[in-house]
């Protein structure tokens, strides 16, 4: 738990810094943080809003990044299947890369679903608090960071930190390399349609790979 929470701090700090560079007010920064609560999509949306991109593109881009929550929602669903609607909604809201990672790492220790849910809420609430504090800290710091530090490079770096641990075998690496190459080739397409096509093609490739394995 502690090392994962520690990973939230630099990520949150980057989000806060980028928000302050985008001239968001403190209220806007923390409001976005509270409502969206998904750092990677907040980073992408903020960069697009800085360029005054239309709302539709901002929202679609953010949602493409957040498609991975489908995976987390599926992983969490067996534990909360018999829980009340309130618990289901609260556990949905708290789904993040980090709370999912913590959950899957401890899966075999849970004797009952309610044990698992209690563990989940403990960890996820702790991460939630650390996250908001880190963004607030980053927002305050963002006004002072020297330009020579090239903090905008921290955005792709934090995406690297998200994706590398998910590359569990060569097949995942293959999909990631494919996605990189296609996204560069399609980069000049208008209204970020290249991104949508890259996402579809890469998921298509993943479907092809997983099908092959099932039939053999």
């Amino acid at each position: 738990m502690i090392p994962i929470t520690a990973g939230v701090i630099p990520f949150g700090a980057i989000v806060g810094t980028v928000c302050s560079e985008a001239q968001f007010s403190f209220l806007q920064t923390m409001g976005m943080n509270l409502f969206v609560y998904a750092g990677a999509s907040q980073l992408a949306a903020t960069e697009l809003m800085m360029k005054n991109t239309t709302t539709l593109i901002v929202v679609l881009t953010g949602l493409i990044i957040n498609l991975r929550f489908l995976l987390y929602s599926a992983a969490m669903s067996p534990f909360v299947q018999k829980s009340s609607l309130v618990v289901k909604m609260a556990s949905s809201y708290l789904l993040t890369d980090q709370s999912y990672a913590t959950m899957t790492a401890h899966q075999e220790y849970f004797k009952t679903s309610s044990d698992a849910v209690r563990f989940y809420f403990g960890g996820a609430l702790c991460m939630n608090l650390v996250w908001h504090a880190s963004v607030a800290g980053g927002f305050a710091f963002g006004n002072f960071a020297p330009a020579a530090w090239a903090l905008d490079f921290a955005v792709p770096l934090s995406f690297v930190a998200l994706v590398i641990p998910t590359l569990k075998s060569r097949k995942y690496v293959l999909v990631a390399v494919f996605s990189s190459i296609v996204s560069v080739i399609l980069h000049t397409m208008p209204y970020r349609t290249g991104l949508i096509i890259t996402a579809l093609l890469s998921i298509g490739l993943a479907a092809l790979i997983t099908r092959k394995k099932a039939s053999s």
Partner: protein
Amino acid sequence: MMESRYFWSSVFLLALGTIVIRFSIIGMSSKIKINDRVKELFSYIPSAILPAFIAPAVFFDQGHVSLLFGKERLVVLFFASMVCFVTRSTLATIGMGLIVLYLVSLIG
């Protein structure tokens, strides 16, 4: 301050869509069962999508280190990926990446 109506409508719609994705499978958990094949496919979503945000941002960046043809960010990104692969640490990945980029840019 970012223009209010534009900002909040974007944030509101993004928040709404995100909670729908988060709630989707959990909300249906008592009605449908997700089979392993679909779960496995879901596990490919990060590797299918996140690189599409990293690669163009870094590939098309024109830096100033002539020794690396201005592509110092690309080189540093490969290095940071290795750091991440070995350490699995967000702090080490971001920290080392920024420090090495700073050092490399001193050359140019």
